[in-house]
């Protein structure tokens, strides 16, 4: 079964989820806003509406929704209007996180799923920028040597290193989506100048954006600045976590524990919830900004996880 986790619009959901420590790169925003949205949905569903089973407190069915083989946590009402003004007023940026340990062969399908969900949520038929984040690439501002960082990672978890061929293969998918007119521009994240230089000759559609994480100081390698300028690639900043939704966190979020949503069982074999292994497939973040006013009107996340006995065990954390 597929689980589709969503935050709804976290800008107006407010609360502590929008604020996270600036010192550490962290995925607090995603985790907190998922948790807050689950809680809000549970509280907003009056116990009376759970007529079918009558026990509003423990039942998850009243605030989630199953459609085909997908369980929406919480239920998403796609019939609501997405954006307040007409499409042309917005810059819509989507960032798709491919997760470590998930086969590259699934990315084509994952990309389509993720984009479709965002288009449906925002009631639009295209996005302006899709940035993809490959697992295992870490940008190191001190020296422009992200390649080595990822190869160091290889020691502990071989499957995480995203090899170059799979990057190119994934990019083909994105190029074809771009050709269909659903995405105006493509972007990558955490590419150093060497990786960019290797990558660009293999692309039909060049990335127009390279998004890099700058911790607190602003040390960007000159080589990257110059190269990006030469190739007309905008260097943008972000503050996202590389491993944005580890499997353990997903189980904790959805499990029966004190801070969980009470949907998943506490362990693959336990019987206190949905049974089976869980594997988070991807996370997507979307942002709609009113162009000439700089107002972030809508921002949120979707995450998709597979659950069931036939799921290949994910990389444990």
């Amino acid at each position: 079964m597929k689980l589709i986790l969503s935050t709804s619009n976290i800008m107006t959901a407010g609360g502590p989820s929008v604020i996270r420590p600036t010192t550490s790169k962290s995925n607090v925003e995603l985790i907190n806003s998922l948790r807050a949205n689950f809680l809000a949905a549970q509280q907003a569903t009056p116990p009376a509406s759970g007529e079918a089973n009558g026990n509003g407190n423990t039942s998850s069915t009243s605030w989630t929704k199953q459609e085909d083989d997908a369980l929406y946590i919480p239920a998403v009402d796609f019939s609501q209007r997405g954006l307040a003004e007409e499409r042309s007023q917005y810059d819509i940026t989507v960032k798709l996180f491919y997760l470590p340990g998930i086969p590259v062969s699934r990315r084509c399908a994952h990309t389509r799923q993720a984009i479709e969900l965002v288009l449906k949520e925002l009631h639009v038929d295209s996005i302006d920028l899709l940035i993809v984040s490959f697992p295992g690439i870490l940008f190191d501002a001190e020296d422009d040597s992200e390649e080595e960082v990822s190869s160091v990672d290889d020691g502990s978890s071989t499957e995480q290193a995203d090899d170059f061929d799979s990057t190119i293969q994934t990019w083909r998918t994105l190029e074809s989506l771009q050709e269909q007119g659903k995405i105006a521009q493509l972007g990558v994240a955490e590419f150093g100048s060497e990786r960019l230089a290797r990558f660009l000759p293999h692309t039909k559609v060049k990335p127009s954006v390279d998004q890099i994480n700058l911790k607190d100081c602003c040390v960007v390698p000159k080589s990257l600045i110059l190269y990006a300028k030469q190739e007309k690639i905008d260097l943008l900043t972000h503050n996202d976590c590389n491993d944005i939704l580890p499997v353990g966190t997903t189980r904790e979020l959805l499990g029966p524990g004190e801070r969980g949503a009470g949907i998943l069982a506490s362990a693959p074999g336990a019987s206190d919830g949905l049974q089976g292994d869980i594997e988070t497939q991807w996370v997507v973040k979307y942002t709609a900004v009113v162009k000439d006013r700089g107002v972030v009107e809508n921002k949120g996340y979707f995450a998709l996880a597979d659950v069931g006995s036939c799921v290949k065990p994910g990389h444990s954390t």
Partner: protein
Amino acid sequence: MGLLALGTALEWTEAKKRADQVRKWGIEQLLANWHRAKGKERDALLWGDEVEYLVVALDDASKKARLSLAQAEILKSLARDEELWKEGTCTYSENKEHEGEEPPHFHPEFGRFMLEATPGRPWGIDFKDLLKVESNMRWRREVAKAHMAPNESPITLTTFPRLGTKDDYIQPYYPPSGPALRSQFVPDEIANPHIRFPTLAANIRARRGRKVELNVPVFKDKNTPQPFKDPTVDYDLHNWPEDDDVRNGAAKDDHVYMDAMAFGMGSCCLQITFQAKNIPEGRKLYDQLSPLGPILLALTAATPIYKGFLVDTDVRWNQIGNAVDDRTKEELGELPLKNDRWRIPKSRYASNSTYISQDPRLRKEYLDPDLIVDEDIKNRLMQDGMDELLATHFAHLFIRDPIVIFSEDLEELDLNKADHFENLQSTNWQHMRFKPPPPEKHDIGWRVEFRSMEIQMTDFENAAFAIFIVLVTRAILSFDLNFYIPIQRTTENMETAHARNAVLDEKFYFRRDPFSPPARRHQQSSSNSNASSTTPSAYNTPPPSPPLAPVESEYELMTIADIINGSPDGTFPGLIPLVESYLNSVNVDVETRCSLARYLDFIRKRANGTLWTGAKWIREFVAKHPAYKQDSAVSEEICYDLVKAVDEMTVKEGANGSVGWELLRGRKD
């Protein structure tokens, strides 16, 4: 200051008789304009900053700094170059940096020693625009300086330390005690000679029935006389009836006494104006920025000296309020009401007293229960369809009399103009101003002006505060933040902000939770209506919510460090983390983000005390000066050295241990 119309200005006795007519016509103009512009939609964010300068002349031979009354000549020369630039025969600046930018605009101000400069074109929200602000401010300073005498400089001190002393602090020199100001400290020539300004000063004085009165507590140092009796006050002057004021106790013990509009309106401020997308967004920004006024006042504190003495306050605000306070004794509550209509608790220049947003979060407990309103005007506005909140706001501004009336303007009411409306609106100098679109300019929308900040000595600081406020407005709209507190608390905060070192030593009322309550949150997210673009239906039918907690539990006393940077226990997020969270949600390029980080870091450190305020830096400069005698007096020599240091600071900005490092860098290397 807006455009200056010419004409025959009425003296107060005449002006008073026409006040009702001006108010009536002003309200009709407002209504016509409101009907025309209330449906304006989708105006872009445009914003502008106003920087004000003192023109100071340095006399190196005698080690004196004097205010230069050269405003008119400088403006004339600037205007000539602007004409040449328009014809394309003048490049305006050898500096290639500003190619393609329109040259800055310069405007007259009240003081004849002042200049105001604005960018040639308003700024947008393109983040790259934000990077131009600082260099544009520098450019303004360069252009201004290039049109001054070689020994003159544009200085961004809020007040000239020795304005109103016995010596020749102005050039050319004029003796005090003229017919318009009747001040024993400053001459009439200190004011811009345009008829509007002397009339403004004279009519305020006439309406009030005596001179304006500024008593600022003196800073008591080791050798300051106890009690301190302002030694510059002359009790034996007999030129004008108002010379009796000091004999009637106008000058208070332990205070520095001043008696003219120039002591207030001669102060320099940093004001920021934003264009809203429509009237609801403008009204929301007006309300949400209001509680930030006192916080930013304390954070920008830069006014520790008046009339040659260190004072015990750090900011200019109340002194301007007193300098233009036209209230009569009856209105002040010193005499029973007989001829006047109301007791009025605040000067025309004061913190604002109204909230105007049709926002379901605006509880009636936040409003001022003692607000003075002209009920007839309010009824007139509502009769024409204006809602009660907005009608109340304008009916409150219109309790004042128009001060300067030109007889030519009273012949015919022109509903396509806003001159009578502006007569009242622009002489209500509150810390927030809600500005309707000018009727003659269709491309300008509803605007909100944030007016409390003190001018900073360097362009870096001024740019940092201007940009910070812009980013705060974007965070307010994006996160739908709620800073509402009872408006009387903001009034109290404004007083608190005056205390010496208030930025670190005082606490301010602030809302504990700037986010909307969870119940409403979910309602909103599930209906997917977006609050930043609140449509009228959203506030006509507020969602059902649990009973509200007592208003007093919604706010508490906080330090400025907590308000700006967040409380250590995480209960209040902090304005800077909110702004950073906003920046993390939009696409910002690396270079821009790093520049913005410099500004935000500066404000963070100003708030937590790592960096000094201008007020503290000036105090320390005086205290360490070899000529200072620990008696609160700031001599001509100290003043000269101070101005020189400030001038140097605008260039070197505290780099490598140069002057001002405590203010700008926090370390000497």
